[in-house]
Every structure is written in C-alpha cells, then in structure tokens.
C-alpha cells in the first residue's frame, strides 16, 4: 500500500492513502521516517511522525505496514538503553555515529548478548495454543517461550545457546516461534486480577520510607520547580529501591544527565543482589532535543516493557522524569493537529489520558497465576514552580502519594527538598503497619512523635520570629533543637555521600537515636538539671 504526503505541519503530516487504519504504523517519505496514524478523515489520514520532519517533501511516498506501533518484548531488554521508540541507542551509535540520523528501523531483536534456551517440549510433541515450549534464562529471570496463536506438532526445537534473531522452534514446519513477541505500545497488557494488598516499596530515602512510605503497585508524583532535586531523587531511588526491575525514562530532559546516570550505574551494584546495577535496569532516553512525538511515545514504550516484567512475576518500578515533558509533547502534537485546546493549551483529554496511565500501576495476579507489581514514580515540572497548573492538578486527582519539592528548601540546600507538611501518602496506614511488624513495633509511634515535633517547631518558629529564640521557654527550645536535628540529620540526605542509601533498619536507628535523646533531655529538664548546651538551637 503506498500513498503520498499532502501536508506537513510540525511533527504531523497529512497523507493520501486510502485503506489505512487508525494507529497503523506507516513509513513516511523517502527517508522512511516512522509514523503512526492518529486521525482518519474522508480524504486524508493524519500521521504523527516520530522523527524530525525537516526536509520532508510534499508528494513523497507513504506506506502502511499493516501493523500497529509495537514494543518488542522478550529477553535481552535488561541493561540496555533505548530511545522513545525502543531503538537500542548503542546499536544506533554503531550504525550512525554520535549524532542521530532519521529513518532507522529497529534491529530484529533487542538482545545483544548470548542467551540460553531450555526446552520443555520435544520434537514431535503436540502443543496447544498458548502452551509453554520452554524458557530463556537471563540472569535470574526465566522468560517463558510460548506458542502464541495456535498449537500443533513441534517440528523443530533448539536447546542451549541461540542466536536471538533466529527462531527457537517451529510448529507444523511453518509457524516460527521466537524468544520475543511484539506488543502494541499503547495497549495495557492483560492480567488475571488486581490485588489491593499493599506491601512497602523501600526506597532507601529516609524522608519517604519513614514519613510518606510508598507501596508496591502504588503511584507517586513529585512536582518541583527547576533545581529542586527531582532528577537526583529519581536516580537515587532507581539505585536503591527494593525491586526486581527498574525502568527509567528520561522523558524530554537532559542528555548530560543521562550520560552521567549511565556511567554511574555501570559501576554500581544492585544493593540487594550484588549483581551489576544495570542488570536490573532498563533505560529509555528520549532527551529534550530528540523528536517530540517519540517523547510522547517513550512513556508508553516504557510501561509496556515494565508490564512485561510484571507479568513474569517481578516487582517493577517505573520512574519517569518528567511527566510534564510528556504532557507538553502531547500539547505540541495536539496543537499541530489543530485540536480544540483546553486549559493552558493542553488537549482536553490530558487528564483522562493521564488517569489511564496511572491506572496501569498495581499489584496483579498474572494470567499464569504469579504475582507481580508495577509501581510508578513520576516527576512533574510545573512552570514557574506553580502547583496550580493543569499537569500537577491532574496528577493530584489520581496519585497515591505526593512528594512536594519545595524551592525554598532547595535554595537552603536541604535535599531531598520534600516539604514535610504538604506531602502525603495514601498508603501509609497499610504500609506503616508492616514496618511495625518487620522493623520495630514502635516504628509508627516514632513517626507520630516526629510529626508532632515538626509541627510544634513550626508554631514555635512563628513565635520566635517575634520574640527571638532567647525569648522561648526551655522546653520549647528543646523542641526546636530536636526538630532541627530531625531536619538536618534525618530528613536531609545527601545523594553524593555514603548517606545516599538508608535501609529501613538504619532509618529506624537514626530517628530513634534523635528521639530518645530528646525524651531524655525533656525528662532531665523536668527534673531540673539540664546542661545549657542541650538548649542550643541548630540554625
């Protein structure tokens, strides 16, 4: 099927090619750019182009592929870095050099290393549709290889090391079975059912684990103006979160940041298994200067891969930086399509699109009876640091936890700059009780005490503004002193030092030490013998 380009506007082209279907993948122009049909009209179809349209000409050919835009799922994804369309960036680098070219199709198979196949069926055996033929081992993962569409007789089956681009088995001589399969980018993967039991997702960040704990299968956003520490926080969590697989999406952000992250990750070990950190990580890098339509797709490419690992029974964490850049990509495309704009020019379907995306998080019983989870942590970059803007507001309607990053804290170099009054986690009740059970029964008690101290400090601070700290009572000065310690020695956590990772046990010890000392000092004050230096208030 071939037609031609009749119009070009930003990242969209209109084409004349009867017979195209909605969301069909097309190749556009002589350069064979990748595109997707996003609207059908009587005389034309509108195609969103995933690569730069510069240089594209009217009348150039357009071809339908008959398939949708898909993600290739199977062994070999871990440890790799892809662009928003799942093209391996190392492979593109070898093919095209350091600067990115247009019109490159993905390689047949994303896997690059050697893989081993362990068959469960023999030649000549009968298999049903959807039945498992064997599995591919990749580190600690076992990727099942199944007959996808229909059953038959196994006419050929491999064993041991194999070439990822070649088939692993043949059914009835004709149907080739590979180690991977394709999945439509925007389609959520099916599961048995969703569970509502939440267990903690340990991040290694004291402020989060202790005050605003996250649950596996939950969602979290952290909005903050520029420089408030979103990226550093996301990358720290990517390093230290207690999960099986991390999918990290650099969505419309900086190239240097990605380079730094990749370099650092390649030297670190997974704190839970001592294997290289990259062995559990998939990175998607669609930086701000890469095509905007691919930026929009990058989030979906990522979530499809994340769901694939969830379906293997893994606890998966998807981190995206930043969701705002995704929303802006959506806005740019929507405006090129001349759709009716909603608030601040975002399309009116922004909120529903986001809600659908958030809904992909959860703990699920997979189709084959395993349990897997997908947790989403998304940074948001509100213009001017103003949280009333549409993206933050749409997130707030659906998110389970909210870590508000505060510019004033960041300016004082208090990192992570999580505002301990405005932030919340809807998972705290169920998750805290499991910390009580696993770490120490007084975990929740210490939380309450910490909260009270911080609130008390806030009130005292207002008083101190008027009367000066000298004018406070001794007991109040003790509160100020303890709260100051909590802020500086407990909530603040420098990502560039040893302190970057704090497992729950250590978090517990740290807060307990501060609080015990405070209780002690309070008691001694009541008994009337308290040395003066205990009353010093840290600045």
């Amino acid at each position, binding site marked *: 099927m071939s037609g031609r380009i009749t119009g070009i506007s930003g990242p969209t082209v209109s084409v004349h090619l009867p017979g195209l279907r909605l969301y069909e993948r097309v190749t556009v122009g002589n350069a064979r750019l990748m595109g997707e049909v996003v609207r059908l009209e009587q005389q034309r179809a509108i195609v969103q182009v995933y690569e730069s349209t510069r240089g594209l000409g*009217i009348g150039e050919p357009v071809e339908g592929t008959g398939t949708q835009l898909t993600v290739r799922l199977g062994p070999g994804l871990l440890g790799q870095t892809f662009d928003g369309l799942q093209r391996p960036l*190392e492979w*593109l680098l070898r093919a095209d050099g*350091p*600067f990115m070219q247009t019109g490159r199709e993905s390689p047949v198979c994303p896997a690059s290393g050697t893989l081993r196949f362990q068959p469960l069926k023999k030649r000549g055996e009968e298999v049903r549709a959807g039945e498992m033929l064997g599995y591919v081992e990749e580190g600690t993962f076992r990727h099942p290889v199944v007959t996808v569409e229909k059953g038959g007789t196994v006419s050929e089956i491999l064993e041991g090391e194999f070439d990822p681009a070649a088939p692993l088995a043949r059914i009835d001589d004709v149907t080739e079975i590979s180690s991977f399969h394709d999945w439509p980018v925007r389609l959520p993967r099916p599961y048995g059912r969703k569970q509502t039991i939440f267990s903690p997702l340990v991040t290694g960040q004291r402020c989060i684990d202790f005050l605003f704990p996250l649950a596996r299968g939950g969602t979290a956003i952290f909005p903050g103006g520029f420089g408030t520490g979103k990226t550093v926080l996301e990358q720290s969590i990517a390093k230290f979160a207690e999960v099986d697989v991390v999918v990290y999406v650099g969505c419309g952000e900086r190239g240097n940041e990605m380079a730094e992250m990749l370099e650092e990750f390649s030297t670190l070990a997974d704190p839970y298994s001592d294997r290289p950190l990259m062995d559990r990580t998939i990175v998607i890098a669609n930086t701000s200067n890469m095509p905007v339509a691919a930026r929009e797709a990058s989030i979906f490419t990522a979530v499809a891969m994340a769901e694939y690992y969830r379906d293997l029974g893994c606890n998966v964490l998807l981190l995206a930086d930043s969701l705002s850049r995704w929303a802006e990509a959506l806005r740019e495309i929507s405006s090129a399509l001349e759709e009716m704009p909603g608030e601040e020019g975002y399309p009116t379907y922004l909120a529903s699109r986001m809600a659908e995306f958030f809904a992909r998080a959860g703990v699920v019983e997979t189709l084959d009876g395993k349990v897997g989870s997908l947790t989403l942590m998304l940074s948001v970059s509100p213009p001017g640091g103003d949280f009333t803007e549409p993206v933050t507001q749409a997130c707030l309607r659906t998110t389970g936890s909210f870590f508000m990053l505060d510019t004033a804290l960041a300016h004082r170099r208090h990192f992570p700059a999580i505002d301990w009054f405005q932030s919340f986690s809807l998972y705290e009740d169920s998750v805290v009780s499991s910390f009580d059970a696993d770490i120490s029964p007084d975990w929740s008690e210490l939380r309450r005490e910490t909260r009270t101290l911080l609130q008390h400090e806030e009130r005292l601070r207002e008083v101190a503004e008027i009367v000066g700290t000298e004018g406070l009572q001794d007991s109040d000065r003790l509160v100020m002193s303890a709260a100051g310690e909590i802020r500086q020695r407990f909530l603040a956590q420098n990502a560039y030092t040893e302190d970057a990772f704090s497992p729950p046990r250590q978090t517990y010890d740290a807060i307990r030490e501060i609080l015990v000392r405070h209780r002690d000092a309070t008691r001694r004050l009541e008994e009337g013998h308290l040395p003066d230096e205990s009353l010093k208030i840290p600045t």
Partner: protein
Amino acid sequence: MRLSEHSFSTLVSVQGPLIFVERVIEARMGEVVAIVFPDGSETEGEVLKIQDDTVLIQTFGDSRGLDMDHSRVVFTDVIKQAPLSIDILGRAFDGSFRPIDDIPMFVPDEWAPVSGRPLNPVARARPQELIETGFSTIDGLNTLVKGQKLPIFSVAGLPSKEIAAGILENARTPAQVSRSGQAFVVVFVALGLTHHEYAFYRDTLDRLRTHFVAFINLAKDPVVERLLAPRFGLTVAEYLAFEHGLDTLVVITDMTNYCDALREVSTAREELPGRRGYPGYMYSDLASIYERAGRIKGQAGSVTLLPVVTMPEDDITHPIPDLTGYITEGQIVLGRELHQRGIFPPVDVLPSLSRLMQRGIGEGRTRGDHREIANALYTHYAKGRDVRRLEAIVGREGMSDTDKTMLDFADAFEKEIVHQGRERRDINETLDRSRALLVRFGLVQQ
C-alpha cells in the same frame, strides 16, 4: 533534485514575517526559499508548514516592500545550512552569516544543517573538566565544565554585558594542543544589540587573545534573524569542536531577545499563546539550542554554552528564565543589591549553582581543597546573609559575637572574593584568596 527552476509569484498574503504562497508544486519542510522583491532585491526565508499546494513561509529578512503581484518566491530544494571551514576563526558575521569585517567570505570546506542533529545520549561523555572563566564566583563556587550549559540570569540595569565580555576575554582551558594547533575558541552570538553595545563588544573582540567567531544581530536588523543566529553559532561550534577537536565556548546574549522573536513569529502565525504569550513549544525550541552543548566519548573537543538571560520584571518564574533553568545545568544569578554596592561581578552565589561542578573539581581536576573551600564559603556566607536580615530588625548591638563575626565574614566575602573588578584570577588565586579569607575568620584550619 528538481529539474526546473522552482519559482512562484502566487503570494496570497503577507503578514509581518509570514508569507503564504499558493499553487506550489513540491515543497519541503524547512526548505530555504529566496524571496524576490519587485525591485529585484532578495531576502531569505524558510518553509514552516505545507498544506496541499499552499505553503507558509517565514522570512528571515525584512518583508517591507513586498507586494502580491510582482514578488516571487524561489524554492531551492535544500534546508538551511551553514558554510564551514577552519578559516572561519577570527571572523565576524551578521545574523544571516554575511561577513561584517570587510574581509571576503571564506571558501567553505563543507556545509551542515543549522538545526543540527541530536547527540545520541549514549555517545555523550560526562562533562567534568574545568573551563576557567577568570571570575572567582564562577570558578571557585559555581565551576563551569566542558560540555555544560550554564546561563547567566541578569536583570535590566546590571552589567551582564561586562560580564559576558570578561568571560570572552578571560576564559581558558588547561592548555591542550589539537589538530589545528589551537585548543580553545569562543563563539560569540549577539542578538538585538544596540549600537552602543555593538561598539563595546567590538572593542572586546579586538582585544581577544583567543580565537573567536562572532555572529552579530543588531537591534535594527530583522527580528527573525535572531532565531537563526544562535543556530549558526552552534553549528560552527559543533564543527570546531568535533571536526577540529577544539574546546568551544559559546556565549549567547541575550536569549530574552531570542524568545521575544519566537513569540513574535508565533503570534503572527496566530498560534495559541502559552504563558505570557510565549508559544507552548518554547521548551522544546530552547532545548534544541541549549542541548547542543556537550562532549562525545572518545573524541577531543567540546561545546560549552553560556547564554545570558535578562529576566523580565526581575522575575525568575518568568517563562524565559524558568524554561531556561529547566534545561540548563544550573544558573549564575546576578543581584541588584550587590551591583548597587559597587560589586563587580554582582554574582549572588546563594541562588547560583553549577550542577556539574562536583565532578569538575578536587584533586586531579582543580585542587584537593576546592570542595572544602567552596562548601565553607557557601555555608558561612549563607549564615552571614541570614544574620544580615536579622540585623535589619534587631540592630548590630543586639547580636551575639558569633553573629557579628558572620556579618563581617559576609561583608568581607563580597568585597574580597565576589568583587574583583576587571582583574582576572586563575583558579589557584581564587582558591588561595578564599582560603586566606576563611583562615582569617577562623573558619577553616590553616
């Protein structure tokens, strides 16, 4: 390639920098066109949008004098490219790449598209080597490294011009010899300069000891040219960096004029305005400029970017500084109050930050004690500034001795470290002075 000349006189509307032409067969996105005026003179333009046979063109020159009947648009079948050669060193051009130094145009060795191509993120090398600017507040406290993009946030009335000039004059990298026998060059892009400013920068360029390339768009020059000039500058910078292995520092002033040009075109296109009338795609557009800074693994050379941004209404949340801050790797913020007290450069180090500094300093990069000194200066100055606020309320008499010391430290820091006038300080001198100051106040060990 098209065979016949592709010329159309079917203009249907002209509106500021935008021209609609009808009944065009074959046109490309971004294609360069020549717009021929009735009197035979020409200006350049670019295809912005195509629908069937109607083409929207943006002119880079002045559209005054165009008419509907006798004007023509000639399509060239190529997208905008920049001529490149090592002979470009030492030359000055206008915003349309025409020489303004009375020397004939050089003979290009090659051409490259001005919009550039994105650098593959896995090809990037992490920025970590110092570029010395000669200013203590930058080198000591907000260190700039090769491949970084670090803007200067200024406000109207502050000497951002003198700072830009100081950097052009004084910036260096630890010496390195490359293929062309040169290690370090500056590319200077000026947008919307007044005549007075132009004279000032010409003097500066005349004094430069490093090699430079300049693109100068004056206030009287076409506004739309301001969208082009930074891209010429960066295309040249990438060429010098990655074809000739030079460390290239690109100074662009003032990005506020760039953004205003972007807004002007967007308004003319009747696009839905975003915050303060700037277009919704301004983030992506600015990123297509700022993200061109970088280094490449296994290759010599680097592109480092230092854009100057004047914050309208002194407001850091204004879309221009805001979106800039969201893309760049930190910011150098100038303070009005420091300027009023005669401090030059009036860099307020508290809101300033170089996000890539940590990797660029310390043993083997600058000096083993750099981090310690920078942290100590920052912490004590921050305290001093807090105390200064208190002083305004309670007066100096009512303060403790430690607080008084902090006050004095903040004053001394501003006078002795921040303030340096036209003097150039190398990194050692910056660190020595800083250490001496800290020692004097008993804030670090001897």
